[in-house]
Every structure is written in C-alpha cells, then in structure tokens.
C-alpha cells in the first residue's frame, strides 16, 4: 500500500518535471501558492504517518490470531482499551494541530491590496479583464507586474465561474450578484495557466486563462500598448478585412477600439493578435487559427456563442489577415 | 432453532394508546420532518431579510387584519381540540362524534380567512424574492391546514360508521388532534415572521 502511494507521488513528481508545469498546484510561483504548497505537504506527511500507523496495526491485528477456529476468545484485556484511548488522544492532538496550521496559513494569505486592480468578469465561456486605472480592456490573457500585489476583483456576467491559477493562488468563485476579491503577488516571471473551476455549462472544459507575469517596465509597456486604439491596417488585404469586419456580423458582437465596432457581447479584439491564444486558450493566435475559428467555431467549441459566418475564401483570408494585424 | 416459551404476552391489550402506539410515534416523526421544513423556510426568510437593504422591499408590510384573525381562530380551536383528545382517550363515542364535527367546522374557518391573507400580503410571488418567500411560507402552512381539514373530515365521517367503536379509531382521533396542535403551533413563528418582522 505504502509502496503504491510512494510510486504515485514519484510519478506525480516525474510528470511535473517532464513537462512544463503550466497549471499545477505542485509548482507554486507566488508567496500565496507557496504557503498553500507547504501546508499541503505538511498535511500529506502527517496523514501518511497516520495512515501507515493504522495499516500497521490493522495488519498486526489480522495476522496475530490467524485462525479458522470458531470459538470466541475470552473477553478483552486492558491493553487494547489503553491503545484505543491513546489513539483517540493522538487523533485529537493531530486534528487540533492541523486546524491551527490551517488557520495560520489562512492568516498568512491575508495581504493588503496593492495599487494594481484588475476586474475579472466571467462569461460563458471566456474571461474579460479590465484594468480601470490603466484603461485596458482585454480578454482571456492578463498581464501582471512581478513583485507588486494585484487585487483581482471578480464578478460573473451569467452563471457561477471560478478563478483558479493553481501556481499563483487558490481558487475563488465568480458569483452573479456577489463581489469577491483576491490578492496575488507573483514573484517569478513566467506564463501561467488557469482554468474555470466551477461547472458553467457546455464549454466549461475550454475556459482557459493565461497569466503573464513580467517585470514592471515590460508590464507598463504592455499596458500602454493595450490602452491604445487599434492602428489602421496597412496591407491591402487586411484593409479589406477591416471593411468586412464592420460590414459582416463580426461587429455585432465584438469591439475594436478606434473603429465603429463597439459591441460588448464577445471579447474585445482591439489587440487580439498580441495575445498568446484565442477562444479562451483553445487555439494559438495565428492566422490559420483565426481563420479556422471564424469559419467553424462550433466544431472547435460546440455550444460557444460565436456563430459560424458564411464567407467566401477571399473574405476569410482578408478577415484573418486583419485579425493578425491587430497587434 | 428450538423455541422455549419464556414470556406470555396473551394478556396485553390489542392496541396501545399514546406513546404505546406506533402511529403516535409516526405522527411525531412526520411532525419533525415538517417542523424542520418550516424552520428551514423561516431560515430562508431571515437569510433573504439579512441581505435586503430594505425589508419588505418596495411594498407595504402585509395588512394585519386577516392574519391576526387566523391566529385568533387557530388559538381558539386549541381548547376544543384538547377536549376532543381527552374524550377520545376516555373512549366516549358520543362526545367524540360531537368533537370531530366541531373541529371540522373550526378547522375550515381559518382556511376561509386564509384566502384573504394572500391578498393582504400586498405583494405577488413573482414580484421579488420577498414576495416569493412570504407566499411560500403562507402556502406551505395552508397546505397543512388543508390536509388536516381533509383528515378531520374523513375521520368525522368514519366516526359515524360501524368502524367507529374501536380503540384504534380513538387513537386516530388523538393523533389527529395532536397534529392539529402542531399546525397551530407552527403558525405562530410564521405569523411573527410574515406580519411583525416586516414591521421592525
């Protein structure tokens, strides 16, 4: 039993080492996740010791009087009563200890909000991020400055979602009619992945979120670029795409700041090509992926609210060129 | 296995009354279920109240007249109800017949006034959550009034048939009286919730 447990843990460690740890609670990258991680291993060690002790006594008990005889043994002795009593006392102490450790960890998580505020709003099935002070609206990918506490203000537009980036912080729900907030301080540069953790309907499985932690200077540059309106495309094909975007159904749902398109139904696409992925981290933000997503979203994310738009091949090329140009 | 007679129960009565009757305990268990249900709906009421910025929201509090009258009628019915229970325990068929007929009338009266209570709530169930929860409270209690009335009517009819003269039937009358007391007692906190918590 213990061997199997060990193997599994080794297996876990191995699988973490083998691939990039992009969404794992076992690879903490912020003080908050770090303290959760320490607490986790404390619990694992204590629980394993308890379990091994129980298993050892069970094995001994089973093997001690191994017999097929059918007579009942004489009434019990004092030893087991004492042992059971001691075990109960030990349980009480262990439980009390773990409870205290858990309270201490909770306290260590409580941090004051920093200067940066991000409003994260959950939609079926994507995330909208607003930086009120910086004037940035984006979707499915948020950038954070390293070392600065960030206050995430969580709200839901439709059903309950849950914000969870395991490497950075435990999860917290986005609940219609209620406001939640959580503070994160990322200490290491990197790209982290999160995912909606509360069942939210058809595409709950594909509601990813990318978190990019970068040095403050890079973050400021990013925020400035994101706050700007979209530059008019220069290539003729992309220009044709821009016209199509306004004429076709795209502009009924999406906004591109700096153009007439300002609908708030779907994600803001002003700088969509600057993101690492599209469709809530389902496809990379490449031209081919844009085309695939525009022409047949329901095969990629069945049930998503993006309808398929009938387009001529040339129109599709133009639109995807335009999307790719929205850096 | 071989059997060895160790006890003769032949002399015991064929039916126990009160706590010796399984039906009595069953009634108690159902009262526990329904009491929990009432308590939970009251908890829902208090929970929604604690969230609301104003209570009742956007509506005048319920008018007192009908609800208070129902309360008075219910409380008044307790006395004959207890008498009926005592007559049943004594096995006095004549008085029990009178009692069940009286209780049929006494338990339909609050039901009639209850109809006016819904109008006196000043809010519809689909106006807001406050309306929903007061309608639920009142509806749930009305269901109990109604079921107990049907039960009393059936029992009243039964007491005039050849099945009346058994201790089992007198037990039924006692259990029904017990249940009516329960219906009255559960009304009191609901009455306070609906009519008086909306005024504090």
């Amino acid at each position, binding site marked *: 039993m213990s061997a*199997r447990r060990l193997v599994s843990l080794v*297996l876990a460690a191995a699988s*973490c080492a083998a*691939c990039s740890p992009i*969404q794992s*609670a076992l690879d903490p990258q912020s003080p908050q996740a770090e303290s959760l991680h320490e*607490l*986790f291993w404390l619990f694992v060690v204590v629980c394993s010791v*308890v*379990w091994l002790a*129980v298993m050892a006594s*069970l094995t001994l008990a089973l093997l001690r009087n191994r017999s097929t*005889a059918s007579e*009942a043994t004489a009434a019990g*002795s004092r030893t087991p*009563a004492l*042992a*059971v009593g001691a075990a*109960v006392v030990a349980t009480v102490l262990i*439980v009390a200890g773990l409870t205290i450790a858990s309270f201490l960890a*909770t306290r260590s998580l409580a941090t004051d909000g920093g200067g940066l505020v991000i409003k994260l709003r959950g939609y079926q099935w994507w995330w909208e991020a607003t930086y009120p002070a910086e004037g940035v609206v984006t979707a499915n990918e948020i950038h954070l400055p390293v070392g600065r506490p960030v206050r995430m203000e969580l709200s839901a537009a439709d*059903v*309950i979602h*849950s914000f969870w980036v395991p490497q950075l912080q*435990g999860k*917290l729900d986005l609940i219609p009619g209620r406001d939640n907030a959580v503070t994160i301080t990322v200490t290491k540069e990197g790209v982290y992945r999160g*995912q909606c*953790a*509360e*069942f*939210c*309907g058809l595409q709950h*499985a*594909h509601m990813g979120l990318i978190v990019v932690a970068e040095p403050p200077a890079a973050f400021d540059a990013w925020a400035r670029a994101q706050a700007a309106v979209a530059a008019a495309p220069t290539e003729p094909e992309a220009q044709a795409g821009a016209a199509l975007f306004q004429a076709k159904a795209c502009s009924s749902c999406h906004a591109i700041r700096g153009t007439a398109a300002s609908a708030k139904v779907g994600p803001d696409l002003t700088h969509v090509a600057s993101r690492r992925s599209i469709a809530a*981290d389902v496809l990379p933000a490449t031209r081919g992926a844009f085309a695939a997503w525009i022409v047949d979203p329901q095969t990629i994310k*069945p049930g998503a609210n993006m309808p398929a738009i009938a387009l001529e091949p040339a129109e599709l090329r133009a639109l995807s060129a335009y999307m790719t140009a929205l850096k | *296995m*071989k*059997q*060895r*007679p*160790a006890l003769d*129960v*032949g*002399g015991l009565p*064929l*039916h126990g009354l009160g706590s010796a*009757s*399984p039906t009595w*305990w*069953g009634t108690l268990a159902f009262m526990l279920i329904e009491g929990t*249900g009432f308590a*939970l709906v009251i908890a*829902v009421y208090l929970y929604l109240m604690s*969230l609301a910025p104003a209570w009742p929201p956007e509506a005048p509090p319920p008018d007192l007249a009908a609800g208070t009258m129902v309360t008075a009628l219910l409380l008044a019915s307790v006395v004959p109800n207890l008498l009926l229970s005592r007559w049943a325990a004594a096995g006095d068929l004549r008085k029990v017949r009178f009692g069940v007929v009286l209780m049929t009338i006494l338990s339909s009266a609050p039901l009639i006034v209850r109809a006016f209570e819904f109008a006196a709530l000043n809010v519809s*169930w689909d106006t*807001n*959550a406050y309306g929903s929860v007061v309608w639920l409270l009142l509806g749930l209690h009305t269901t109990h009034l109604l079921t107990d009335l049907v039960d009393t009517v059936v029992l009243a009819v039964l007491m005039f048939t050849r099945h009346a003269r058994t*201790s*089992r039937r007198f037990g039924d009358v006692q259990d029904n009286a017990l249940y009516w007391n329960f219906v009255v007692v559960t009304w009191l906190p609901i009455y306070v919730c609906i009519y008086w918590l909306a005024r504090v």
Partner: protein
Amino acid sequence: MNGTEGVRHPRGRDLPPEERERRLRRIWDPPRGILGALSVVDHKIIGRRYIATAFVFLALGGVLAALIRIQLATPEGRLLGPDVYNQVFTVHGANMMFLFAVPVMEAMGVYLVPLMIGTRNIAFPRLNAFSYWIYVAGGALLWIAFLLDFGPDVGWFGYVPLSGPQYGYGKRADIWAQMITFTELAALAVAVEIVVTVFKQRAPGMTLDRIPLFVWAMLVTSFLVIVAMPAIMIASSALILDRLVGTHFFNPAEGGDVLLFQHLFWFFGHPEVYIIFLPAVGMVSTMLSTFARRPVFGYLPLVMSLITIGVLSFGLWAHHMFTTGLPRVGESFFTASSMAIAVPAGVQIFCFIATLWLGRPVWRPPLLFVAAFVVTFTIGGLTGVMVASVPLDSQVHDTYFVVAHFHYVLVGGAVFPLMGAIYYWFPKMTGRMMSDRLGAWVAALVFVGFNLTFFPMHVLGLQGMPRRIYAYQPELPWGGLNLFVSLASIILFAGFLLFFVDVVRSAVRGAPAGDNPWNAPTLEWATTSPPPSYNFDGIPVVTSANPLWDDPETLPVATGLRVDRRELLVTSVQRAEPEARESSAGASIWPFLAAVATTVMLIGSIFSPWAVVWGSLPIAVALVGWFWPKGAPEDEA
C-alpha cells in the same frame, strides 16, 4: 372493548407447530398474481426489491462511468460531445447518490432491521410499499428522460443560475429537481418507518444497550434523513417555482441569492454523506464481530460516535462552499467542525482494529471487504481532513483531487462494506451461500482496481485538472495519468461484473445455507433462511447483546400472539417491555395507486402548476382508500 377478554381468539401457543405455521402462513403470506405483487407489504419482499433495483441503478451508473472514462482516456476525446457528457456526468452523480447509495442503505435497513430486532414486519408496512413505488418512479423519470436526450445537465448539485430559468434551458433541470422530490419522499418514508420500528417493535428485553450496532446505525441515519432531507426538498421546490411560476428565490436582481441554493443544498448534502456512510459502519461492526468471533470492541464508544457524527454532520455544510468567499469567521467554524468529525470516525476505526486484535479472524469474503474498507476509507478520511482546511481546499476544490477523495469515502467507506454485507446476508435473503472463491476474487479485483483507478486522480487534481470537464487539451500534462486511470478502471469493472455474476449464479445454484451459516450472534439468524413471511414463529426474548452466542440451541420466545390476524408486539422505547399486541396492516393495492397518483402529479407539475391542484384530488382519493377500514381483523381492535 379493546378485546383482550371477550371473544376467545385462537392463540399460537394452543396449536401444534405445524398447524400454527399453516395458520400464520395463511394470514402473513403475500397475495398471489400481478395484483398481489403490487399489493405486497412484506418488508422482506419490498427490501429485496429495493436492493435489487438499487443494484440495477448501480450497474447503469457504472455504464455511465465507463463512458466517462473512455471519453477522458485521451485528450479531446470524441466519444461524447459536451452536451451528452454533461448529461452523463450529471446522471451518473445523481443516480449514484439518489438512486443507488441512499436507497440501497435504507433498503438494507428495511430488510434487516425488523429481523435483527425480532419483529414480524416493519412499522407502517403500506408506507413502505408506497416508498418503493415512488422510488422506482423517480428512478424511471431520470433514466427515461436521459435516454430521450432530456436528461439533466446541470450537475448532481444543480447550482443556480446554471439550473435556473435563464440558463437551464428546457425542462432538463426540472427533471433533476423532481427526481429529488421522488427519492427524498421515498427516503423520508423509510426513515419514519425505521425510527418507529426501532423505537416500538424491538423484541422484549432488547434494551438500548442490546440493540445491534447496525440497527443503531440505521436509527441515527434515519434521524439524519428526517432532519436533512427537507432542506433539499425546499431547495428543489424553490428551484422549480423559480423556473415554473416566476418566483425569485435565487434571482439576485430581485432580492434573491444564488448562494442560498448552495446553503440549502449542502445543509442536506453533507449529512447525505453520513446517511450513506453510517449504515456501512453498522454493517462493518456486525460482520466484524461475527468474523472476529467476539463481541465488537467498544460498543458504547461506537454508539456514541455514531450519534456524534450524526450531530456534527449538520455543522459541516459550508465546507463545500469554501471557495465562494464566505466570511472568515464562518470559515473558521466550519474548518474546525469538519476536522473534529475525524475524531469519532477515528474512534470507529480504532474499535474495529481492536476487535480484530482481540478476536480470531476467520477469512471469509465479508471480512475481506471489511479489511478493504479500513484500508481505503482511512485514505478517504485523511484526504477529508485535507479538504476541511480552507486554504488547502482553495487549491483542491472542484478538481480531480476531490473526485478521488469522495470516491474513497463513498466507495471505500460504503460500497465495500455493502458488498461485504451482500456476501454476509445473501444466505439469509435467499437461503443460498455465495461463493467464497469468487468472493475473494471480487474483493481483490475491486480493491486493486479501485485504488489504481482513483489514487492517481489525487495527483491529477493537484496538477490542475478541474472536475466536470468533457475534454482537456493535449498540451496539458494530464494525458498519461488519465489513460492509466481509464485502463485501471477495467479491473474495477471486471470486479463488479464478477460480483454480479456471483450473485446471479449463487441465487440459482448456491449451496444451501441453513439458518445460521456464519454462527452469527444476532436475531436475524434465529429464523430460517430465507425467513418465513411472518419472520418469527415466537417473538424472541432477549437477555444479552449477542443472544445467539449465549445459547445457540434454543431461543427463548414470547407466546400468546393471535394467529387469525397479523399481530406483532409493541414494546417500550427504553427498556423494551411489552406494551401491546399491535396489528400490522395487511396487503393492499392502495399504496401502489397512491404512488401512481403522486407520480402523475409530480411529473405534471414540471409542466404546469395546475397539475398540483388537479393532481392532488386522485392522491386524496387514494389515501382515503388506503386508510379506510375494510373490516379486516387488522383494522379493528
């Protein structure tokens, strides 16, 4: 007037045994024919039907589990689309909780409690029949809806707003909510019967400290049902009202609250776990004592721990809501109470081990399942301590870690003991033994298969895999373990398959069992296997906690019950002193008709609120028919 004197009724003790048996059979045997089968009120027949039906639902739920494992074996699985997958996992969960786990535990109680306490039928036998039919109707509602692509797709927990009027399109969520009404109605009915049976129908002399532990467990469970189930009925009714007539219980824009639903759901949902687990503890205690060949160690601490768990279980509900942002004070309270429940659970495990330590274990299949239970459940209990901690839970909540945790608790803690219990009581129910050899194989396959399937899920959860996802992207590092889990589940399925094979084979060709094949100490073994329709010829008189070990040859009995009507003994609550000879209701078609009327009303109310009004009339008629005296000897006293 109460007929004690007056007419001389025939008494059992005055007759020769054969004649007594003939007369008892004539009044207690169930009626024949289709109508007779629908009128049965014998707790053994209803219990058997209940158990068999629950196992059918287990098998059906297992098929859904297999579909889930095939879908998740590879990244972006293409077997099921998101719509079907959501229905599959919802129906799997709802089916296992509401149609298998709770009913099967109550069914074991329905079958065993009257036998273990030495009475002839359960209290309110017609209510028992009604309960079974309502349960079948609820199960049929869920499964027919699912097969018609109509199945609920909102999770077994049905959180609003996803299940609410705006996002729960069509009638799928209503099916879920109404299925709950059906099963809870059935469960509440059984709980009332068991409470009253244990309180009032125990054999003379069975004082509180002589009640078998399984009966204690069922008693505590029944109280949990009585107090917990109204919460879910209110939650599901409020949901239906929101969806059907436009109330606003859960609409934040009109003063409602979405978390209110979660509070109500988990006020039921957490005790629910113990409703499933406590009977299993009772089964383990009973089997352990038989196969350790000594009375169970620590009777009093075990009873106290059952009661403590029952009470504490109501202080835990919010630990399912740690990620909703509850106030800190509340979280601390719920953390402390959730962890505290580890203490009584620990007491139970320690007493079990001490029993084995003092006894001479006999290696028959039930003991194998008990061992599997201790090993597996302890892991589930310890991961339970982990999820009770708010900070830890914020990482593992709604991930595969929790999926692993509750399968360890529910399968390890309840299904393993249940399978052992089937091996243990199968001889009593059918008169035939199940196979020791196959039993050992079943235990080994299920134990190994279960742990290989579910242990890696802890790791998957920590690696960030959320629950209830129909697919995952190949870039995420979960492919290997998921494939491993899916392959390992084949072993688990093989174990269950072999179990069903053994049940069917033994029912047809098993070796005859005899009255007491395990040399067990409790009263159900004092009668024949299977027991006659009247359970006991003479009502046993109890003088100790393990009556059959005191004297395995002769049974002290109470005599003097009539043989011309269904009669049983009512005793006092505390000391079980005889109080009355009570009649027990005979077979009747009315409970079935009442169940049909109720079914029509409840299903109709999914579509129109007026169904409640018009549907109540036939129910009232059926209930009057049910309770109206027919002049049978049982009706008069």
